[in-house]
């Protein structure tokens, strides 16, 4: 088979899917991209068995059809060094010898038999479907992914939970210290109003989506059965295994009636936290928040190094004085994942979950972040 492609366009597609490839594979065929030429369309696949990414692009002067597996590192290293130009690929289907011809030279590879590349899992017949807008999924993934756990003892938390009911889809992630919940109405779904359906998307494919979604627009169609999930976009398709098991009951842990409600300017809060937290104990990252009428005092100290810092910023708060401690790195991460310029803090007391909410809501999207405090001694 033969075809001609733009070097940078090909590189862009391959780089996007190459992130799924593991550095070390027990199955050596997975070190390769699978190229599959069908008519004028070139399909490219990368996989780690659990997650598979497929992308496609139109090529010029296509002749013949076929499949070949090409060493991913060799190909990427070569493509990276070309300035934009057409490259011609010529692959001998019988012995898999491959030549790339550029303006100035030629590069010879030997491919591997494309039939050895693992096949995609088939979806079961009772698979459900769901479609939503690409920007909304993109926003949902990036606002929840940072809360996923890395916990071999509780694998169900190492992913983003998709909970579909009442014409809405809710994405939830938690590592048992912090939790993010994101809800949007979906466009279409096979899940009826009386039903509920759910699956857990593992961390790695979620991170792949976070990377690919900004390159896309329009709709994303999600198909899932009880084992796998498929995300279909205009240029990319991702198929992945779900995390098995039951996601913890997140709704039951979100406090409904936190008494204290404080409104803060998000950026001045984050910036003050960043400065003060430099002086927190390096192991605990503990910062103390002291709320009094319309004022927040942020303080931290590291007794080991005899250093301390404090800052006072304005806020809207009318209640009684309140003190609470948080791990500053968690709090900063949460605030960085909210887009609104003002935020609402809903607190109960120093040992109960605090809620962090955007003050101005994005259209149709409901965002809630929860953070457990750290105990303070005074």
């Amino acid at each position: 088979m033969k075809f001609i492609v733009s070097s940078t366009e090909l590189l862009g597609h391959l780089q996007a899917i190459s992130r799924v490839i593991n550095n070390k594979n027990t199955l050596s065929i997975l070190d390769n991209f699978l190229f599959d030429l069908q008519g004028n369309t070139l399909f490219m696949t990368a996989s780690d068995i659990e997650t598979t990414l497929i992308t496609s692009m139109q090529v010029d002067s296509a002749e013949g059809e076929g499949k070949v597996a090409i060493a991913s590192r060799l190909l990427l290293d070569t493509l990276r060094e070309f300035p934009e130009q057409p490259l011609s690929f010529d692959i001998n289907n019988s012995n898999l010898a491959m030549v790339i011809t550029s303006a100035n030279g030629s590069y010879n590879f030997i491919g591997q038999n494309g039939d050895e590349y693992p096949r995609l899992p088939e979806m079961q017949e009772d698979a459900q479907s769901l479609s939503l807008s690409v920007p909304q999924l993109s926003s949902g993934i990036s606002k929840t992914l940072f809360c996923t756990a890395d916990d071999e003892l509780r694998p169900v938390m190492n992913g983003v939970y998709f909970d579909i009911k009442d014409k809405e889809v809710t994405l939830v992630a938690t590592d048992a210290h912090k939790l993010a919940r994101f809800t949007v109405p979906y466009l279409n779904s096979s899940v009826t109003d009386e039903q509920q359906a759910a699956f857990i998307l593992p961390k790695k494919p979620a991170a792949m989506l976070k990377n690919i979604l900004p390159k896309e627009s329009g709709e994303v169609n999600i198909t899932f059965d009880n084992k796998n999930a498929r995300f279909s976009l205009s240029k990319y398709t991702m198929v992945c295994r779900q995390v098995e098991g039951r996601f913890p009951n997140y709704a039951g842990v979100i406090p409904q009636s936190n008494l204290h409600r404080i409104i803060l300017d998000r950026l001045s809060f984050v910036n003050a936290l960043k400065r003060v937290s430099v002086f927190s104990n390096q192991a605990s990252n503990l910062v103390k928040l002291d709320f009094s009428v319309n004022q927040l005092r942020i303080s931290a100290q590291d007794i080991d190094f005899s250093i301390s810092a404090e800052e006072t910023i304005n806020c809207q708060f009318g209640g009684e004085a309140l003190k609470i401690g948080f791990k500053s790195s968690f709090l900063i991460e949460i605030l960085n994942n909210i887009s609104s310029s003002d935020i609402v803090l809903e607190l109960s007391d120093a040992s109960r979950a605090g809620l962090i909410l955007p003050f101005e809501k994005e259209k149709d999207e409901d965002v809630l972040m929860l953070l457990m405090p750290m105990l303070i001694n005074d």
Partner: protein
Amino acid sequence: MPGATRKIIHVDMDAFFASIEQRDHPEYRAKPLAVGYSGNRGVVAAASYEARRFGVHSAMSSRLALRRCPGLIFLPPRFEHYRAVSRQIRAIFEEYTDLIEPLSLDEAFLDVSKNHKNMASATRIAQEIKASIRSQTGLTASVGVSFNKFLSKIASDYNKPDGLFVIKPSDAEAFVEKLPIEKFFGVGRVTAERMHRMGIRNGLDLKRLTKAELVASFGKMGHVFYGYARAIDTRAVEAQHLRRSLGTETTFSENLTDNKDLLLCLQELTEELMRRIGKSEFKGRSLSLKIKYEDFKIVSRSYTASGYITESQTLFKIGRKLLQEAEVSKPVRLMGLSLKTAASNRSLWKSNLQLSIPFETFSVESQHS
């Protein structure tokens, strides 16, 4: 310092493994001897004083040891035997006190402030212990006597071998002032170099720095050094030495490069570690994988779980993940796996202060994997 002056003894057996072998094999007495394997990949576990004169010391590769001392006799270690002798010595300690903190088979701290024989003189106790060790085991020990752990350990090192040295409270500060900085607890090669650059060569130099200066340069250890420079060390002799980690490692007869071989080895290490965990009832949350490459460069990767790692499947899964993270493109000569109670203060802090979301599902559920 809390309360009355304590009486602490540090007992350090002289070339313990090598001395046992020389005692049991008269033909090797007064000869350079090393315990360990002489093969290409062996290391010296212990060296007799005769061998030390040639520059042979423990943890040295056997090849280098043989180069320094061509007539060096190698004996394979008999750890069960050494443990038995160690128990014999411990029985001697127990005649005086129950406050015994063993540091290894050949080293222990004893708090004899109160002792079973109601003896007032710690020096007298030290003399009796030395004599009993010699008469019951035929071995010699170096013993340090002082009023805290730091000083008693320095004292035992002062007159090695077969020494007995006492640092009295009235002499302590003067003694510490003259002490080279390398001899301080917690001062390794790197810290010693930093100290030298700061112009600190001995205890007196150290004493000239304020607490704030020491803390600024050495962090938490700054507080400790500040105390040491003033002959202060409040750490108690802890009779029940809590196990902090449990591990196993293996050096391959041939360097490994293939991922499959490494995984196979990981499987074996996992099983061995599980066996040891089962035997000791030790529980740990943090798993470390250690890899030594053919060029002797060592890397380690660790992972701290949210709870105790108790199942071999979980252990293997985490091990495999750590192996993925470590670069194994270079040939590997050694692989080790160890389980620790917690990775560091970091996770300790986390578990103490950071509250967790009270999910119902996880409060009672035992883990499936």
